[in-house]
């Protein structure tokens, strides 16, 4: 591959960045705080895809990129690399989650019951245009129940195992330090389950949805039903120097299990989880996980296909790199095209001469 040096563009590049930032205007702590407060689900999406949980930094990334999601994720992932890893928390277990939404579409009467939590699933999607006419929208307050919901809900899969509906699973005995980590080692195929689930956790939401939707519409071998969906908060349990385990705070997480059909006497299950509350992503990702086992190589539900193509920073980086100068490589295309046209012109000119000369003969 050849390279071409370009010059003379430094001022234009500088002015282009200035124009981008001028359009966004001044950014201050107040603006960042407003984004953080008013757009928690957008913040969640950015944190999940960036693999970095910090609401303030996610809001800052959105502010300085004007809401360009792939740019926001990119700057957060880049910033992440500047920070030392202090510790690995104790593994979060489903039964320990402070659960605020938990539904099942496969089982009606699940232990602990079904709790809708915060959702627009059953609402009219009406744009509040009155706000633009000067009538602020003030949401009515929730009529709180007399007693609180249980803070912890049992894992549905455990209940299903006890009934012989789901295959037994051996207890994980991998030390936290030995869990495979995509941020420190390459993704190789076939991927370990830990790599697959970590990759899906940080995958681009739209990409996961597109490929998961393809599987749902029939391009995969398994149609999903939501076995259990949770929106919850998880404790970040770390270790004090004296050995005490304690929670340094909570983070929002989403989890989904989807199920399809019986296989070998058990229900098949797919699983996914991510930072933040983003249930579309975890349902779609769990569908991809469910379809992985029997996926044909090269299909959209084959893990190599969906893990590579939903890695947002690499995908967007590859896409936007096509804007960069390709003059040398494209020159060969032009040369080939001009050569072909010249040959075509020569070939078409020759019969014409013959036609012209024929009457004379």
């Amino acid at each position, binding site marked *: 591959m050849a390279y071409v040096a370009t010059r003379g563009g430094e001022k234009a590049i500088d002015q282009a960045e200035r124009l981008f930032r001028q359009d966004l205007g001044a950014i201050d702590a107040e603006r960042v705080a407003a984004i953080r407060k008013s757009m928690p689900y957008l913040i969640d999406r950015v944190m999940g895809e960036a693999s970095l949980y910090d609401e303030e930094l996610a809001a800052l990334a959105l502010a300085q990129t004007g809401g360009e999601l792939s740019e926001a994720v990119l700057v957060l992932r880049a910033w992440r690399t500047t920070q030392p890893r202090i510790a690995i928390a104790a593994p979060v277990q489903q039964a320990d989650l402070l659960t605020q939404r938990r539904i099942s579409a496969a089982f009606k009467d699940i232990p602990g019951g079904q709790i809708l939590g915060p959702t627009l699933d059953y609402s009219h999607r009406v744009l509040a245009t009155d706000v633009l006419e000067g009538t602020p929208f003030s949401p009515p307050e929730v009529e709180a129940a007399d007693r609180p919901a249980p803070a912890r809900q049992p894992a549905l899969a455990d209940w299903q195992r006890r009934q012989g509906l789901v295959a037994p699973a051996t207890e994980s005995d991998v030390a936290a330090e030995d869990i495979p980590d995509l941020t420190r080692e390459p993704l190789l195929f076939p991927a370990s389950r830990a790599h697959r*689930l970590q990759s899906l956790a940080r995958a681009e939401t739209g990409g996961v949805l597109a490929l998961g939707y393809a599987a749902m519409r029939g391009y995969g071998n398994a149609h999903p039903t939501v076995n259990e969906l949770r929106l919850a908060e998880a404790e970040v349990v770390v270790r*004090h*120097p004296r050995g005490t385990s304690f929670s*340094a*705070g909570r983070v929002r997480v989403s989890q989904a*299990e989807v199920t399809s059909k019986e296989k070998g006497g058990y229900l098949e299950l797919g*699983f996914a989880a991510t930072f933040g509350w983003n249930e579309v992503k975890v349902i779609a990702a769990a569908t991809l996980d469910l379809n992985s086992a029997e996926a044909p190589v090269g299909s959209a539900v084959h893990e190599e296909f969906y893990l590579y193509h939903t890695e947002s920073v690499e995908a967007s980086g590859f896409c936007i790199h096509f804007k960069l100068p390709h003059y040398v490589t494209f020159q060969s295309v032009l040369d080939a095209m001009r050569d072909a046209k010249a040959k075509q012109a020569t070939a078409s000119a020759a019969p014409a001469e013959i036609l012209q000369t024929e009457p004379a003969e």
Partner: protein
Amino acid sequence: MFNESTGGGPDHAAILNVLARARPDGLKALAEAVLDGLGDIEVVTNRTGLVMVPLRDTVANVDFHLGEVLVSEAHITDGGGHVGYGMVTGRDLERAMAMAVIDLSIAANGAHAAVTTFIDSERAYLTAEDDMRMRQVEATRVEMETF
């Protein structure tokens, strides 16, 4: 790593849980107040960094990395070899240091009245917050019926 003894015991864990989520203004004010009762303090660490959070997959019981959480950490010691430690989610070194100072104060001098009052007050506040949230959540419980 997390199957070892609980070190300072359940009381220590409960105190740290409250301090890590305590409201910043009161936390910092208490730290300022107890600082006078401590001797020379050596700061071992005061930094931001990341904590990787694994999560257990419910299908195959595999632990995998969900992602990293930004935390602030403070680790201090006094001349008597007592340790104070604070770690809080987010980018707030002052809050982490305030937690570490209070933790050190408890390790060196015991939990005197001001500390106990603050921890009890914050525990009550946090419990009330959780209680209200979970009562709102309970209001969304649905009984499914099929016909």
